[in-house]
C-alpha cells in the first residue's frame, strides 16, 4: 500500500479523533442529532462524488436507491419475523441489485440523457411508493424500528460516525487503486478509455453498484434513526441538496465532498430561523460556486494543505 503522507495522516487522524470525542463535549441531544444528520449527508455527498466526480456518471438515482433500501428494511421488519440485522442487509442488497440494473441501463447514456433517465427512475420509484399506500403507508410515511432501545442520541452518533469512517475508507482505497484511474479515464473520455483496453462496461457498472451499496447503507441508517421514512424524502429536491453539497465542497475530491456535506448541513441547521431563505442562499451559493469556483470551495484548500489530489 502506498505510504500515506504525513499531512494527510494528521488530517485523517485528527478528523477521526475529533469525531470520536464530540459526544464528550457536546451534551445537547439536539446538536448530537445535527451531527448525526451531518455525517449522513456527508456520506451521501461522498457517494455522489464517487459516481459523478470520479466516474463521470451524473446520476439522480442515489436518493431512490436510498429509499429502496430503507423501505425494504422497514417492510421486512413489519411483515416478517426476520432478525433486524438481516433486514438491514437485505435492504442494502436490494439497492445494490437495483443499482446494478440501473448501471446496466445507463451504459448507453451520457450527460443530460443520463441525468434525465435517472430522474425518471427516481420519480417513478417515488410515485409508486407514494401511491401504493396499502403497502407503504404512502405520504404518511412508514414507521421503522429504532436501532437502539434508548432516547439518547449518543449511540446513533457513534453508529453513523463508524459507518462514515468505514465507508469513506473503502471508497478512498478504491479511488486510490487502479479502479480509481479507470473511473477517471471513463469520466474524461470513455471511448478513448475503451480504445486503451479499459473494460468500460465492467467499471461503469462497478461504479454504480458501489455507490448503490453505500446509498443503501445510508438509507437503512436514516430509516431506523429517523424511525420513519416518507416518499417525500426521495424528491428531486433532496437529491439536489446532496448534489449541491458535493459540488460546493468539491465534487472531484471525495474528502472535500464529504466535508461539504457535513459543513453545509451544519450551516443549514444553524440558520434554521431563516426558514426558506436558507435554501435560497444554498441555491445561490451553488450557482456561484459552479460559475466562479468550479473545483468547489474545499477541494482547492485540501490540495493546498495536503499536496495531493486525494
Amino acid at each position, binding site marked *: 500500500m502506498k505510504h500515506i503522507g504525513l499531512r494527510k495522516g494528521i488530517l485523517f487522524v485528527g478528523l477521526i479523533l475529533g469525531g470520536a470525542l464530540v459526544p464528550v463535549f457536546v451534551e445537547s441531544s439536539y446538536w448530537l442529532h445535527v451531527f448525526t444528520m451531518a455525517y449522513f449527508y456527508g456520506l451521501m455527498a461522498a457517494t455522489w462524488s464517487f459516481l459523478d466526480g470520479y466516474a463521470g456518471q451524473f446520476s439522480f438515482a442515489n436518493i431512490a436507491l436510498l429509499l429502496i433500501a430503507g423501505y425494504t428494511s422497514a417492510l421486512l421488519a413489519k411483515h416478517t419475523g426476520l432478525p433486524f440485522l438481516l433486514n438491514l442487509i437485505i435492504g442494502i442488497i436490494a439497492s445494490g441489485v437495483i443499482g446494478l440494473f440501473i448501471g446496466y441501463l445507463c451504459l448507453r447514456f451520457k450527460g443530460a440523457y443520463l441525468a434525465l433517465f435517472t430522474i425518471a427512475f427516481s420519480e417513478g420509484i417515488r410515485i409508486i411508493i407514494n401511491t401504493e399506500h396499502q403497502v407503504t403507508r404512502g405520504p404518511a410515511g412508514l414507521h421503522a424500528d429504532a436501532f437502539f432501545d434508548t432516547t439518547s442520541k449518543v449511540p446513533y452518533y457513534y453508529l453513523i460516525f463508524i459507518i462514515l469512517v468505514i465507508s469513506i475508507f473503502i471508497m478512498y482505497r478504491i479511488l486510490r487503486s487502479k479502479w480509481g484511474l479507470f473511473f477517471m479515464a471513463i469520466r474524461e473520455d470513455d471511448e478513448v478509455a475503451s480504445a486503451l483496453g479499459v473494460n468500460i462496461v465492467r467499471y461503469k457498472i462497478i461504479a454504480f453498484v458501489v455507490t448503490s451499496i453505500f446509498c443503501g447503507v445510508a438509507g437503512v441508517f436514516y430509516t431506523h434513526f429517523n424511525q420513519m421514512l416518507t416518499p417525500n424524502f426521495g424528491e428531486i429536491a433532496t437529491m439536489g441538496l446532496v448534489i449541491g453539497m458535493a459540488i460546493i465542497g468539491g465534487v472531484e475530491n471525495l474528502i472535500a465532498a464529504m466535508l461539504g456535506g457535513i459543513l453545509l448541513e451544519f450551516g443549514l441547521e444553524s440558520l434554521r430561523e431563516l426558514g426558506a*431563505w436558507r435554501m*435560497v442562499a444554498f*441555491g445561490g451559493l*451553488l450557482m456561484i460556486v459552479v460559475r466562479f469556483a*468550479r473545483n468547489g470551495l474545499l477541494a482547492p484548500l485540501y490540495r493546498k494543505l495536503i499536496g495531493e489530489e486525494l
Partner: protein
Amino acid sequence: MYGLDYFFMQGANGLVIGCLYALMALGLTLIFSVLKVVNFAHGEFYMIGGYMSYFLVTLVGGVNPFLGVLFGMVVLLVIGSTFDYLFLRPMHRGEVDRPGEYAILLTFGLSFFLQNLVLAVAGPFPHRTPSFMEGGVRIGAISISADRLIAAGLALALMLALLTFIKLSWTGMAMRAVSQDQDAASVAGINPLRMSNIAFAIGAALAGASGALIAPIFGIVPDVGVLPSIRSFIIVVLGGMGSIKGAILGGIIIGLVESMGAAFIPDMSRALAYRQLYGLMIFVIVLLFRPRGLFGEAQ
C-alpha cells in the same frame, strides 16, 4: 366501465391542456436547440409566470388578466436574459470542460434559488388568479371551461407567433444558424452569445406564459413547477430534443395520455396518482429504444 362520453370528454380536455404543455415544452426545446442546454429551471420559470400574473392582477389590482400573462412573460424575459448573461457565457465561449454538466448544475441551482425565493417571499399557501372569463362551452357531451379554451387558444397563438418569428425573421434565422453550428454562424457574422441570450430569454418567457395561462385553472404554489418541469423533459425527449414540431406534437400526445390514461385504472385514487407514471414510462421507453424521439436527429 366508462362510457364513450367520458372518453371524449377526457380527450377534449387532454387536447386543450396539451396545448399548454406544448407551449412550455417549446420553450425548453428552443433553449436546447440554440444553447445545447437542458434547462432544469424550466418549471420555476413556469411557476414565476403564474406568480407574476397573480402579483399584477390581484395584488396591484384592477388589471386585465391578459396583461398579467404579458407581464409574466416580460419578467421572465428579463430573468432569462440576466441569468444567461451572468452564468452561461463561459459555456458559450467554450471555456468550460464539461458544458453539459455545467449547465445542468447552474440551472438546477437556479431552480432551487427561485423556488425557495418565492416560498420565502410569498409563503407556502396556494393562491388563485382570477379567471379570464367565466362560464364554458358545451358541444354535445363535452363541456370545457372558458378559461381552458382561452388558455389553449392563446397558447396556440403564441406558438404560431414563435414559429413565424423563427421561420421568417432575421433573428430567427440567426438563431437557427447558431443551433446548427455555432462556429459557422459566428464566422458568418452572427453573434452566438447574443442569439443564445435571446433564445434563453424567449424560452423562459414561453414557460412563464404557460404558467400564467394555467394559473386561473389550477392555482399557484411555490413548487407548482416541479411536475411540469419533468413533463417538459418527457415531451422534449419524446418529440426530439431541439425539434419544434416534436415539442408541439409531444405536448398534445402527453396531454392526451395523461387525461385518458386515467381511464385505464379502475381504482380512481390510484388512477390520478399514476397519471404521471404514464408519462414517465413513455419517457423511459423512448430513452431506451429511440433516444432521438419522433423528430430528433440520430445520435
